[in-house]
């Protein structure tokens, strides 16, 4: 599972298709999607609404199964995992950032970051130190004991990103992370994620409409009608 540049492939999809059978007429959300994501990438998956971005992200994130095809994450075919195994796989391998931040409202910023490490059963002193370190990195240490309702949208999303990062995942999936942010907050968040990508080598995969994200991405995968229309790697 090595590329020519000796970087590991973290995500590999082969001929994946997804058909939703719920409606009267089956809806084909993805068709024959072949995609490889190598570690350290900063990739944006773009496309109009209904193009299949979220479906692809859900499949990559192990939240949904493809109707056909294979999906390997960190070398493991996650579509073959049992549900409980898949939850555990997500916990240790994938970081999630959601459009609506989705922080736990009754926990403080620090506790939100610690929470995922708690699920991983990390020692208390270790998770406390890592949470504070990450909060410091995103300049929110002074807000450590504040609940999400007292943070701005940008601050909440920064906490959500470091929460995803706290579990030391193989990659971070971000579904429209800047959609609810103003320009300054979005720029700030993108700079932060780009820095983490460059300094720590963290792989980021975004689904987005936002041109600011697309401009920052080093690879842009465009989906249309459930198929990959283009795959552009930038220098």
């Amino acid at each position, binding site marked *: 599972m090595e590329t020519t540049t000796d970087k590991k492939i973290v995500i590999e999809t082969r001929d994946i298709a997804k058909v939703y059978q719920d409606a009267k007429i089956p809806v084909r959300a993805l068709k024959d999607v072949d995609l490889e994501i190598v570690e350290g990438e900063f990739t944006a998956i773009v496309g109009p609404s209904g193009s299949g971005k979220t479906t692809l992200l859900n499949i990559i994130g192990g*939240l949904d199964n493809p109707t056909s095809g294979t999906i390997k994450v960190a070398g493991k075919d996650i579509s073959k995992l049992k549900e409980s195994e898949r939850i555990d796989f*997500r916990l240790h391998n994938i970081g999630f950032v959601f459009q*609506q931040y989705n922080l*736990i*409202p009754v926990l403080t910023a620090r506790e939100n970051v610690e929470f995922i490490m708690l*699920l991983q059963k990390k020692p208390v002193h270790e998770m406390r130190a890592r949470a504070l370190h990450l909060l410091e990195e995103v300049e929110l240490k002074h807000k450590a004991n504040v609940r999400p309702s007292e943070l701005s949208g940008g601050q909440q999303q920064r906490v959500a990103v470091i929460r995803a990062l706290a579990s030391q995942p193989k990659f971070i999936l971000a579904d429209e992370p800047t959609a609810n942010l103003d320009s300054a907050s979005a720029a700030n968040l993108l700079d932060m994620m780009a820095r983490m990508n460059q300094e720590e080598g963290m792989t980021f995969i975004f689904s987005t409409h936002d041109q600011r994200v697309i401009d920052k991405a080093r690879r842009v995968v465009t989906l249309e009608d459930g198929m990959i229309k283009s795959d552009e790697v930038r220098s």
Partner: protein
Amino acid sequence: MKMMATIAWRNVWRSRSRSLVVIGSIVVGIWALIFMLGFMNGFMISYINGAIKHEISHIQIHKAEFKKDNNIGFVIPDGMNLARTLALDSRIQAVSPRSIASGMISSPRKSGGVKIYGIIPESERSVTRHDSLITEGSYFKSNLKNPIVIGKELANTLKVKLNSKVVLTFQDRENNLVAGAFRLAGMLETTAPMINKATAYIRMEDLNRIAGLQEGVHEIALFVENPESETTLLTDLRSAQSGLLVESWREIAPELELFLSMTDSFLWVLIGIIMIALIFGIINTMLMAVLERYRELGMLMAIGMNKWRIFMMIVIETIFLSLVGGPVGILLGLLTMYWLGIEGIDLSAYSEGLREYGYSSILYPYIENSTYIHVAAGVIITALLGALYPAYKAVQLNPTEALHTV
């Protein structure tokens, strides 16, 4: 676990007013449960104590044949001496030997069937305390010749007043019909309808003289010093008096035992109803809480919180909700029981009807300490049962769908 408990506890207060409503219903439910338990217990104790104290006493001794056939000839051999010996036992507070006959009581205007007790007033009053229940006249204190004490209700039926003459007719030892004239010395009012309506008390010496019984005793009633010693006393008496029938109040009046078990069953039904109501209240609240947090629960599942943890988080939250209401309800119930245990509940407005069934008009609710522990355990079980369905709903969610819930 600590973090789970923290989240659960904070979630309880997330929707403060809704939580307070459900906590309030738990408090009221538990208080009502304790009150009803205490009330029914008090009712039961009042009834049984009344029956023991004024009617049957703790233990009675008879000649076995007398219980089968109330023939006046079946006297306890050397009964008076046995009564005197028993009076020396420190476990026995009072002893009353009685001779008994069934017969008729007649006034100039009416007559009716009665059970006639020949008693030694000094001994009898220490067992049945009938002297304290005299409403008119006195308890064998007057200088009347052949005094008789009957229930006020019987006196009314016979249309007799104090000092009126009544005639008792019954069989003597030889099965001859004999009669004696008595003067009404006192009227009593007890909680036992049988005593009020169809019992007459005369001096033992009078009954025995007319019936030709000399010192014949049919029944020895014992009032024990400490009800807890009743069982051992019964065993001792049975082995010492093997020829006699020694019975506890449970055997003498099996209807009391039946009443006890019926009340017990009723209480369980009551507990069940209150618990079911609480369970539905809790299910409703927790289900709302789960549906409200659908997206959040979906996020938790997405980032890697397994179903068991989500299930437990909802269960812990429900237990916390109940643990806030439970102790407050128990404390309120305890204070109510303490206060009512001293003050009592005046049921005099209903006492005429209640008296018919043998209850006193002031009721003292009572609850054993262990009941509070049972109620506390009941609250936890209720919370657990109430948590199951909402927790099940929570783990059934699909994270991809939940994450897109508005």
